[in-house]
């Protein structure tokens, strides 16, 4: 009888322990960045300074593009084979070329915008395997 009682208690305690373990796994700490790695190509982002406010503004309709200059190493499996691209930024200030060759040196430009004050800016940098972003901002506020 004593053995049976101990056995049933053990079963209950075991189930309780399992449920607590599973439950704690369910709840867990809130994930801070559940972003999955889904990366390729080049994104150009263009901001423009704002006269009075605290923050820059993403600039739509700004021309941009890039030119592949040379390979650093082997392209990643996600890489495309585009070596030159042109376009304009969207409403979020972004110009994307997902098929750009990665693990390579690129010269990328943004601007000039349709009219001043955002002049053309360019940058030469290595786009790592998986792709990368080029951020441009017009700092014209005194």
């Amino acid at each position, binding site marked *: 009888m004593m053995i049976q009682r101990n056995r049933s208690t053990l079963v209950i305690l075991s189930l309780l322990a399992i449920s607590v373990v599973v439950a704690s796994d369910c709840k867990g700490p809130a994930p801070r960045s559940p972003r999955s790695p*889904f990366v390729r190509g080049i994104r150009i982002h263009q901001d423009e*300074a*704002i006269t*009075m406010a*605290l923050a820059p503004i993403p600039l739509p309709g700004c021309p941009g593009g890039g030119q592949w200059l040379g390979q650093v190493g082997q392209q990643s499996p996600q890489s495309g084979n585009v070596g030159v691209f042109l376009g304009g930024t969207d*409403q979020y200030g972004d110009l994307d070329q997902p098929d750009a060759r990665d693990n390579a040196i690129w010269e990328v430009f943004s601007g000039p915008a349709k009219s001043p004050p955002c002049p053309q800016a360019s940058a030469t940098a290595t786009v790592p395997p998986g792709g990368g972003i080029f951020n441009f901002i017009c700092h014209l506020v005194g």
Partner: protein
Amino acid sequence: MRVSWLLGVCACLGLFFLSCGSRDRTAPGTESIMFSSLGNQPFLDYIYTISPDGSNVQPLLSPELDRSYKYASGNSLRSDLAVTVHEKNSRGAIENHLYTYNPASGHWQGLVTDGSVGEALMSPDNSKIVFALGTNEDLGSFWIIDLKTGEKRKLTNGEKDQDTWHAYGTWRPDSQETAFLQLRRVTGKGVETKLMASSLSSGATTVLLGPEVGVTAACYSPDGTRLAAITAQGLEIIKLPGLERVVIVPKSSFAGSQPYPPGSLIWSRTQDLIAFSLRNEQLAQSQLWTVSTDGSKLRQIYTEKDARITASSFITR
């Protein structure tokens, strides 16, 4: 003994379901914050939901091959959302298109699949969507589409030169008026902003706040009698129609961060809560913050590196 064993099993299972049940679902009627997170590579743009206390971060729309999600707005996860989808058009060029998406049924419907759509704002009564649309000739204007009839028309007409565009809008809770920013490049200075309001019934557009205020985001209170706005001074509450302004969070409280991107400001319909996003350049960090409408209980609830977070809607689960 058998009874006690059964009771134990039931208790354990009950505990299990109680614990796990709260992981993905909050109780019906509670709100989550919906926000977009634009990544640092093409097609790395997500829509997430998060509980106002910072728990339960859930991807609602995750990138697929050549398709990601730049903005989503709505009122409930059981009704249609307005979603800006980043994808290729029929010519292979990458654009942003407007869809409705019903999370409950998984149904998508394309509404604007040509051009560069910006944020798309579902009206509080779920009958209309206001959206920003840019073309080669127009940096951005607001359009409105009636979801019953499919009728589409330009909302913001009038004086607008080629250096001016409209973006970062918000609905008044009665679905009869929108407020939005008019942005204009100024030679040698950058961009200046005005906060405008446009009545759907009369078509009249009025200036609420001029360029000296430096407003970069605005949203209506649940009863439509006030606006919250991010300005050069910080986070303000503006009483309508007299436009009396009170700073509830001065910019010094942003602790080295700055409001970014523009338009990221929402007001809960059921709680005394406002949400907005900041960017800390030094930390390369985007942050989601909440605050009570009197400026108390300011807290950072979520951070992400190398991304641009825009709070778009308080949404019922």
